[in-house]
């Protein structure tokens, strides 16, 4: 562990800029740009250590939801165009292994981020398949399964956004967004 931590270091930089540099700059566009820079540094200082756990949790949640959707698709009532549950399940399991570094048993940030993008795309594919015209006139059991999948995705989206908000709008920033 190197002290000061990255968060402490960034906070110190933001404080120095605010207390030592900002008062020297007259009102105007340059001062406003510096104020924004300080606000960004403060946000990053607050959340830098939460980003990797956030991605890790997000990926796990998306994977688990996708696997539950695959189980529902296995019942065969609803068929989502372009989505084969068997292929998707294999993809979800394989990528879980690949997201870990060969040297240490801990997922690296860039692997987590790449995995997150890939999982997001799977969710986009689900969304588009769920709203394909053919499904609007499907059988009642098929539409029931479709609705259940849609509800699972909506619940997942809420959890994803709640996690994002922890990183993007930490408590002392949320007030300014509201």
């Amino acid at each position, binding site marked *: 562990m190197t002290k000061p931590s990255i968060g402490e270091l960034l906070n110190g930089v933001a404080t120095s800029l605010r207390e030592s540099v900002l008062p020297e700059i007259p009102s105007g566009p340059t001062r406003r740009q510096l104020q924004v820079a300080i606000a960004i540094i403060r946000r990053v200082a607050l959340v830098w250590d939460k980003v990797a756990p956030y991605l890790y949790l997000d990926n796990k949640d998306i994977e688990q939801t996708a696997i539950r959707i695959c189980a529902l698709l296995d019942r065969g009532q609803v068929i989502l165009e372009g989505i084969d549950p068997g292929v998707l399940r294999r993809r979800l399991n394989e990528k879980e292994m690949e997201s870990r570094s060969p040297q240490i048993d801990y997922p690296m940030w860039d692997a987590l981020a790449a995995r997150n993008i890939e999982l997001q795309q799977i969710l986009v594919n689900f969304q588009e398949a769920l709203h394909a015209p053919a499904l609007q006139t499907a059988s009642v059991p098929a539409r029931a399964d479709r609705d259940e999948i849609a509800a699972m995705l909506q619940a997942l989206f809420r959890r994803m*956004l709640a996690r994002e908000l922890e990183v993007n709008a930490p408590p002392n920033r949320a007030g300014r967004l509201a």
Partner: protein
Amino acid sequence: MPPVSPMEDLAVRLREFLASKLPEASEIRIDNIAPLTAGNARQVWQFDLRWIDQAARRQMSCVLMRKAKAGQLETDLDREFRIVDALWGSGVPVAQALWIDSDGRWFERPSFIMEKIAGSSDLQSLLKGGPGQDSRQIALDMAAVAARLHRLDYERLGVDFLPPARIECAAAQQVQYWESLFLKHRMEPHPVMVSAFIWLKEHQPTARRISIVHGDFRFGNLLYEGNRINALLDWEMVHLGDPVEDIAWAYRTLWSPQAFLSLDEFVGRYTQLSGIQVDPETLRFYRLLGEIKHSIISLTGARSFADGRTRNLFLADRASTISAYLMQFLDWLPGSEPRSKASC
């Protein structure tokens, strides 16, 4: 030779530009140039202009608006100039549009000059309702301004530079426009946003009428003095469409006048003055679209910064605001069945 300061350089450009626009003028003088706070899509300066026109001394205070290198939206300054020009004298408060440099020949990027109007556009002061300032009255005046704008006969006004809109397709046009920007500028798949666009496409309302829609109608884009509005600013998102869109946008949480005038009161006043009925379902649709619209504006700004097309730090971290808007979208989402869609 000493280096020329940016303000001196601007004064020279202004004199040369105005000499081209006022060929009869002599002794053109530019004084008191100063930058003004503006949005992220343009740079703004105020200045005093004096000249002699056929022996008569003339003077006026002006504002120069120059398009930013890259901002949140790819806007057409020419269209903004033309709509303000068309609205001058219509009863909708706007500053007089004076001269335009459409291709940026004089100012490097498209720019135009407007008459400077007295007043403040301080959003924070409006939201706080500072001493001597009645934000409720300004919000009521805003309802009156919206009523005047939306009742205008846009065909008689000659705004054929705005793309046409039909009542069945007004919502679809907006959804398509914002979705095209989303697909162009997104930096990740964004499944929640994709889901939002699917919902919007499945629930498009039919407009009761087509009006000139300001597109960024809100506290913060008003020039006010005392308790009345002197001018509506920032017409960069103007289009023909459903007037309800402006009301929904005015009541987004970020700048809503709700603390002074409830949405119901605003709608009541607006309907009383305009005769335009506001369908609650349509209002909800546009409130939902508003969250997505602001998400895309933020996304576009963040992308401009990420790509190095702008160094404006206001845009650097804009993507981090999107999750709050999307959460608001989900909170307002009704559990209704899709409406039947018009062919647009």
